[in-house]
């Protein structure tokens, strides 16, 4: 083991209690979350285990934190980083866990090597390097945790955002919200076709009011969905085409073929009803019950 790390290891072994205490205080003061958010008990447990891991790692001699002897320290850091990811800590707050250890360690080194400035500088440098590596590792794990959260949310969004609504007996509506990419199209298609089978619907209205942009790929996906529904014996109407989208479709030269397109869902629904041989007629309006019973509030003053 290099001399400077030997000193660090010695300091960790002899003054563990003091280092832990100072470190905990530093963490609580530094970012102001130790006491409130994680709970000092859990933080203390994590810190103690990390110091142990650090000491074991140092004992092996290497400073390559990806090596096997550092396994316990890495595991602990993973645990801490993932826990903080879930609780919504910022990357800085997460990395702070490792970086705040620098101050107590440097203080110990300064005491031990007070009379040898060169050795002190060397020891400080290697300790700093070591903790930086561990800190970066923590940030990486934090990042990975965040990415997992994002992926999970994406999945949930895909599942949530493709409802198939029954508008009338035999008429389904599929309001699409958000960008229509390949994976989304797959889910949309599957749920629409399944509903066609289940409900025996003969007309499906795909409403793209909530689709921000339509490019050639989106149009192709829409046409695929329409073709698949047709194979199941259901006709599709595309509705909710905004003026800009209509312009884009024409400028891009997208051929929507024989698909019926309507500006609003209401128009599409009217077409669907006509296809089914149904009509909507006007009759005297029926007021809701509350409105009829309550006397008009503004007539008394007049």
């Amino acid at each position, binding site marked *: 083991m290099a001399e400077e790390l030997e000193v660090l290891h010695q300091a960790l072994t002899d003054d563990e209690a003091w280092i832990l205490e100072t470190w905990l205080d530093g963490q609580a003061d530094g970012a102001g979350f130790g006491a409130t958010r994680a709970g000092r008990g859990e933080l203390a447990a994590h810190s103690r285990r990390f110091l142990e891991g650090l000491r074991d790692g140092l004992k092996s001699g290497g400073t390559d934190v990806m090596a096997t002897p550092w396994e316990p320290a890495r595991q602990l850091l993973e645990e801490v980083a993932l826990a903080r990811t879930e609780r919504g800590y910022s990357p800085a707050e997460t990395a702070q866990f490792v970086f705040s250890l620098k101050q107590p360690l440097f203080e110990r080194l300064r005491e031990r090597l007070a009379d040898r400035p060169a050795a002190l500088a060397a020891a400080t440098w290697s300790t700093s390097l070591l903790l930086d590596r561990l800190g970066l590792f923590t940030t990486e794990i934090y990042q990975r945790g965040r990415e997992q959260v994002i992926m999970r949310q994406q999945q949930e969004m895909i599942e949530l955002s493709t409802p198939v609504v029954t508008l009338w007996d035999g008429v389904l509506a599929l309001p699409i919200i958000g960008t229509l990419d390949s994976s989304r199209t*797959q889910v949309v*298609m599957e749920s629409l076709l399944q509903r066609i089978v289940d409900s025996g619907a*003969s007309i499906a209205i795909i409403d793209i009011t909530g689709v921000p942009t339509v490019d050639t790929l989106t149009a192709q996906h829409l046409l*695929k969905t329409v*073709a*698949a529904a047709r*194979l*199941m*014996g259901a006709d599709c109407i595309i509705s909710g085409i905004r003026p800009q989208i209509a312009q884009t479709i024409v400028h891009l030269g997208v051929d929507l073929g024989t698909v019926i397109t309507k500006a609003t869902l209401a128009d599409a629904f009217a077409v669907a009803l006509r296809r089914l041989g149904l009509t909507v007629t006007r009759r005297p309006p029926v007021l809701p019950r509350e409105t009829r019973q309550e006397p008009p509030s503004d007539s008394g003053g007049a």
Partner: protein
Amino acid sequence: MERIPILKMGPYLLVTIQVDMHDRVALGLQDDLTQKIVQARAKGVLIDISALDVVDSFIGRTLADIAAMSRVLDAETVVVGMRPAVAITLVELGLPLTGVRTALNVERGMALLEAAITRREDGDADIH
């Protein structure tokens, strides 16, 4: 060789595919059906593929071909009961069977055939 039975119901021919469609079975069906249309002077053909759970590009093309051939022989064709997975596969294969009538089930397919044939006869009457 396996053959797919073709049933005659009045002016219609009914084909229910209950076995795995191998390429040779599909080609056999193509032969049998065209012959039967001519022989029975059928006006409509209904192909039920509700039991078909796997299609490849060849079967898809054969289905489209059969429909086109029936049309040439002056018989309306309806393909009914396609499963969602099959529909998605055909679309992904780039075989949306354009020009083939489709319906959700046999009942609707029959109604579609009757409507199509009535319309055509009315149209023919107009010409004369």
